[in-house]
């Protein structure tokens, strides 16, 4: 079993499937009166968040608590300390406190990898810069499998700001490992040259959303980050919404069984219209619920045994 979860590429097909299977068992706990398992009693999980986050932090906190681990939340918002050094000092502090696992979100790509070199415990990457967010990819894969029954052979369109999206990167890596075919869709300015080949051969790039829709089993919309809107990656928000936003007519061009996903938070009216976001095809709320189960599975598989 792996010690850290830093990248979607850390997982081979067997390990990823094992996490998804374990998550399915963890999900049954949510339906019980006592939503708690004793598996991680006496273990300490630190949530180290250098960036704002609602669902990911709460999701990890709920997951750790349901497994009876002790949770320490560390929010570094507003910290003015120099990045590299502060992260290392913080890591050594956590080490001294005896953290068994550190869940880290950091604005710098690669922060989780560095952290993993400094601490003895397990490190879970909860988003590092524009790099990776592997537990999001796992919960997306879990949601697809739960809705569509399989992952192998699925056509998944990932639409939007691929350039800045850690969700897209982790999803491409994990979904290719699990046998799905990913197509990256977006304006050329937001899709790095040769990203498909660099991440996973077999991944396609297409700049025309309408051409991709009829053959997609899953459409995953990425958030257009507000701070990017002024950066002239595209002429205007309205033009982006016209060409790459998922609205009702576009949704109806999808196959009957296809689902619409979004990692959240959404910009309603920008990349996704309320009609689509609230439709039965949308899995957005399910994704949040599945996030807790998947993170329970990850924490259990990292900390449950003696594999430290």
């Amino acid at each position, binding site marked *: 079993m792996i010690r850290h979860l830093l990248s979607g590429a850390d997982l081979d097909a067997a390990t990823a499937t094992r996490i998804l299977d374990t998550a399915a068992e963890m999900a049954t706990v949510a339906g*019980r009166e006592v939503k708690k398992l004793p598996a991680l009693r006496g273990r300490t999980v630190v949530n180290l968040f250098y960036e704002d986050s609602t669902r990911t932090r709460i999701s990890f906190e709920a997951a750790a608590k349901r497994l009876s681990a002790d949770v320490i939340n560390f929010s570094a918002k507003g910290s003015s300390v120099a990045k590299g050094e502060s992260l290392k000092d913080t890591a050594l502090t956590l080490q001294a406190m005896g953290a068994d696992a550190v869940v880290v979100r950091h604005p710098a790509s690669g922060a989780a990898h560095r952290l993993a070199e400094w601490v003895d415990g397990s490190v879970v990457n909860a988003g590092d810069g524009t790099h990776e967010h592997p537990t999001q990819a796992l919960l997306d894969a879990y949601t697809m499998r739960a809705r569509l029954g399989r992952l192998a052979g699925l056509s998944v369109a990932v639409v939007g700001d691929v350039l800045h999206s850690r969700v897209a990167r982790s999803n491409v890596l994990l979904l290719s490992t699990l046998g799905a075919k990913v197509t990256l869709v977006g304006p050329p300015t937001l899709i790095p040259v040769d990203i498909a080949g660099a991440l996973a051969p077999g991944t396609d790039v297409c700049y025309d959303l309408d051409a991709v829709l009829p053959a997609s089993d899953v459409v995953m919309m990425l958030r257009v980050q507000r701070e990017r809107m002024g950066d002239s990656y595209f002429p205007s928000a309205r033009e982006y919404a016209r060409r790459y936003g998922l609205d009702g007519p576009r949704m109806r061009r999808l196959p009957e069984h296809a689902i619409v996903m979004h990692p959240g938070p959404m910009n309603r009216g920008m990349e996704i219209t309320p009609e689509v976001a609230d439709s039965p095809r949308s899995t957005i709320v399910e994704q949040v619920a599945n996030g807790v189960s998947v993170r329970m599975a990850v924490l259990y598989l990292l900390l*449950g*045994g003696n594999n430290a």
Partner: protein
Amino acid sequence: MACPPAAQSPTARQPSVKVILASADVQRVVDRIAHQILEKTQGAADTVLLGIPTRGAPLARRLAARISTFEDVTVPVGVLDITLYRDDLRRQATRAVGPTQLPPGGIDGKRVILVDDVLFSGRTVRAALDALNDVGRPASVQLAVLVDRGHRELPIRADYVGKNIPTALAESVKVTLAETDGTDGVKLYGGTSS
């Protein structure tokens, strides 16, 4: 609870293997336990059988099938996975979690009979009692095992025992069932004595 793996080395002295129950004997023993359950529970009313994986699950299904043959009552059957409740989780590599399936009627207020293949240290049963505590509140809990081999480490006893086997600690008991292993049988593997 499964037993410790038999230390078998091809070069060492052949470990002795003793057949405790042959295939037909296993069926007879299951029949007897089914009768005992019916007798002790006044016809298995308000009773739920919960098998502890791996081999407790098919045993529970067999008991339910025999009970319905003998008395024409349907006893709900479920599976109780105890992996996350084990006290030795941290001593081994991470174990795979199996499914827990409770019967549709649940277990609240019922008489729950836990079913396992071998009763040894009692730690599996302790874990099962903890797991049970989290999934409901049965009126009472009983324990049925195919084999009791002794060497308890906890104050736990079985209500229904298929066969008591006096063993040495170094020996190991292996139960096989058609559903999981192809054939029914109970064998005793000797330690190092030849």
